[in-house]
């Protein structure tokens, strides 16, 4: 097996000068950032920031202000922590792009994945941190403004669809053309589900209650279950890919 991998992609000789024996420690360090980051992400967003499960869209301005007031402390701790660790998203996505670069499908979609995900961090992760922090920063802020921050935060967090749909599409196509089997073919098919859930989630922009709202059974919960399954698969196969990568090899330019 390793013979095909080396022949097809990985085995570009790394310099000719004498060097230390090849080690895969760098790969493993970066790999472990993937589960660590997403674990922290889950804990922070569920337990502290209160963004998952999502607060209701169908409440009055006063209820939104009240909601911020009653969760202010955990929201503040949560999003301050997000500010420190959210670089992990860039590393996790960068590592996926790196493994995609080892595929035989050419670098195009590896770069597309990296670009789409790097852009997605701002609307999909940081903007909600900013809005909710700004709302809790001044409890006496004009209630209409806090209510707008509530909507802006939740919709940017749950409704930033295009960046991620582009990333999933790039991921799927790269896998389908790959002969090195860095990721299994079915994970590409499964990425199609992800795109479909993103398409359905568009409805949260027109629906403020019911199954298609940002906390709805279809637009949110089903999408989160699919995302969780997909992310776990991606992590597991990232580990297998790291296992199989020959020490001292690097992707082709």
């Amino acid at each position, binding site marked *: 097996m390793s013979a095909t991998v080396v022949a097809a992609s990985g085995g570009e000789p790394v310099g000719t000068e004498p060097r230390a024996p090849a080690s895969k420690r760098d790969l493993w360090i970066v790999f472990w950032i993937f589960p660590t980051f997403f674990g922290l992400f889950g804990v922070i967003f569920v337990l502290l920031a209160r963004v998952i499960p999502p607060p209701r869209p169908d409440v009055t301005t006063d209820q939104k202000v009240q909601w911020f007031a009653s969760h202010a402390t955990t929201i503040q701790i949560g999003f301050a922590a997000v500010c420190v660790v959210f670089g992990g998203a860039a590393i996790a996505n960068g590592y996926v792009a790196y493994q995609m670069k080892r595929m035989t499908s050419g670098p195009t979609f590896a770069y597309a994945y990296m670009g789409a995900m790097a852009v997605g961090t701002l609307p999909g992760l940081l903007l909600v941190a900013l809005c909710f922090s700004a709302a809790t920063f001044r409890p006496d802020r004009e209630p209409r403004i806090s209510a707008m921050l509530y909507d802006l935060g939740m919709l940017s967090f749950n409704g930033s669809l295009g960046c991620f749909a582009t990333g999933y599409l790039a991921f799927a196509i790269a896998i389908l053309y790959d002969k090195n089997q860095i990721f*299994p*073919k*079915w994970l590409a*098919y*499964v990425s*199609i*589900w992800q795109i*479909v859930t993103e*398409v*359905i989630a568009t*409805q949260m922009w*027109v*629906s403020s209650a*019911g*199954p*298609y709202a940002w906390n709805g*059974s*279809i637009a949110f919960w*089903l999408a989160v*279950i*699919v995302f969780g399954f997909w992310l776990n698969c991606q992590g597991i196969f990232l580990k297998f890919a790291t296992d199989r990568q020959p020490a001292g090899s690097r992707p082709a330019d």
Partner: protein
Amino acid sequence: MTNTEPTALTAEQTDHADRRQRGTHLPGDGHMWLMVLGDLIIFGGYFIVYMVQRAMAPAAYLQAQQHLSITIGVLNTVVLVTSSWFVAQAVRAAADADYERAVRLIYGGGACGVLFIGVKAYEWTMKITQGYTNSNEFFMFYYMLTGVHMFHVALGVLILGIVVRELRNPRRRRPSMVEQGATYWHMVDLLWLVIFGLLYVMR
């Protein structure tokens, strides 16, 4: 059924036939079946949520359902079932190594798929001009379910195109490839039958 005598079968084909007879042949491959079963489960989730929401306001849903045209629904179902017939026969033809017939049959299936999309687009246009938009909860489900399904149909047409391309190249034609495409296509059909039953027919 076929006019031409089948050409010599490859080892893969006789192997398939043998396993089919013993009832242990997995059509296509496991990757595709994992996708299909997962897709069925996800759609199952959508259907259940639809039923739960419907149970909360049955009268409103039934009233909205009456604005769908059953004639168009029946027409589209027959079109899609017929396309599945074409594709299923194409799988048999490919297993018999009768590739020209297989390609012709897949063209038939693809044409039905395109016709389905055309009818669906006409239906959407009619409903939107009549003022039934996604502000009504039933129509929200209608547009979402049929829209996601239409995305699957369009993807299916693309997949059938890939199957045709592989069948036309003597070095790449493999029965399992045809079966994979067919499995996906029949899933699209299967999901439509459920959507048809839930949106158009039930009371």
